[in-house]
């Protein structure tokens, strides 16, 4: 009987491991989405993703019930001119980080619902191996200190 219980727990544990899989190695820090101005056709999401695993991680898609679709974009500024280009994937190096920040790479939430500061938005990321990972972002107002300065929280 004891063996059976061990086996059950063991199997359950393995299943849990399999479910967690790679996702367990991506940590999302300071994940937020900009509050939407009325009639906004798009808004942006920012986060710092740390990969604690020893293999490169690739996010190939994202979706959310809070918008029509989620895209990855990068703003590049050359000679004072901002150009946005769509990115097919987000790559987080093994043991490294990827920072999505205003004026750089960001999530673009196309056709968003009205999002108000303080609400939470659930976004599901799909990894290259098909695994899915859902994380919650906080809605923040642009121009507020916490929104503009991702490191503000770490300061006294």
């Amino acid at each position, binding site marked *: 009987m004891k063996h059976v219980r061990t086996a059950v727990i063991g199997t359950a544990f393995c299943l849990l491991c399999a479910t967690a899989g790679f996702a367990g190695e991506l940590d999302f820090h300071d994940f937020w989405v*900009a509050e939407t*101005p*009325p*009639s*906004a*056709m*798009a*808004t*942006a999401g920012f986060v710092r993703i740390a990969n604690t695993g020893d293999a490169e991680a690739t996010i190939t898609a994202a979706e959310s019930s809070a918008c029509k679709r989620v895209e990855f*974009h990068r*703003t590049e*500024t050359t000679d*004072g*001119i*901002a*150009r*946005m*280009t*769509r990115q097919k994937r987000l790559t987080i190096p093994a043991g490294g980080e990827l920072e999505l920040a*205003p*004026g750089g790479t*960001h999530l*673009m*939430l*196309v056709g968003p619902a009205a999002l108000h500061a303080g609400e939470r938005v659930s976004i599901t990321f799909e990894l290259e191996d098909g695994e899915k990972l859902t994380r919650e972002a906080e809605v923040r*107002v*642009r*121009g*507020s200190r916490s*929104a*503009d300065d991702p490191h503000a929280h770490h300061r006294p």
Partner: protein
Amino acid sequence: MPPDPTPATLPTSVRWVVPLLVLPIVAAAAWFAVAMLRAIPPPALDVGPGVTVLRAPLPLPDFTLSDHHGRVFDAARFDDHWSFVFFGYTYCPDVCPATLGTFRAVAERLQDEPDLQYVFVSVDPERDTLERLAEFVPYFHPDFIGATGSPEEIANFTSAIGVYHRKSKDSTGPDYLMDHSISVMLIDPERRLAAIFSAPKDPDAIATAFRKIREHGTAP
């Protein structure tokens, strides 16, 4: 034998004319040099990195846009105000709302400046109707002004002050993106471009720079 085309000496009657010709040229050159020296403007005001204060403020051209209340928005709207102006589009998810967020933070810091106005000019009139601007712009601050107009009138304004904008080559369909200058322009109360903020992110730095520029004043 043909006559020598270049005689060794000029006839006496011509020789006295030479100084008469040369003197005015020398005088003109001297006058021009003095004028150039006088024209060199004083050193530009240094108000911090990322801000260019124009040595000679640049008068704005004529243009006619509409503001989000439906009123005419032309160069005269800059009279008697200091104005921060930014050029973008409402579909922009990153730079434009971030800059309007910065405007909001600057406005908080400069509440005591009564004649300061903030203008968002949409360079995407195809999608940004006045109704859309009326919803979008006041969200950032009820006093902010949204303006747009025909592509020609927008170009009259932007091309004269070096603001770049065009549809992105990489995007098509109704969800197209725009490439555009990220600079914020400061217009003085004489409707002239006074300063350019090339990386307008830090509201404290912008507010401090503005106070210095205002205190210093722009050239008459």
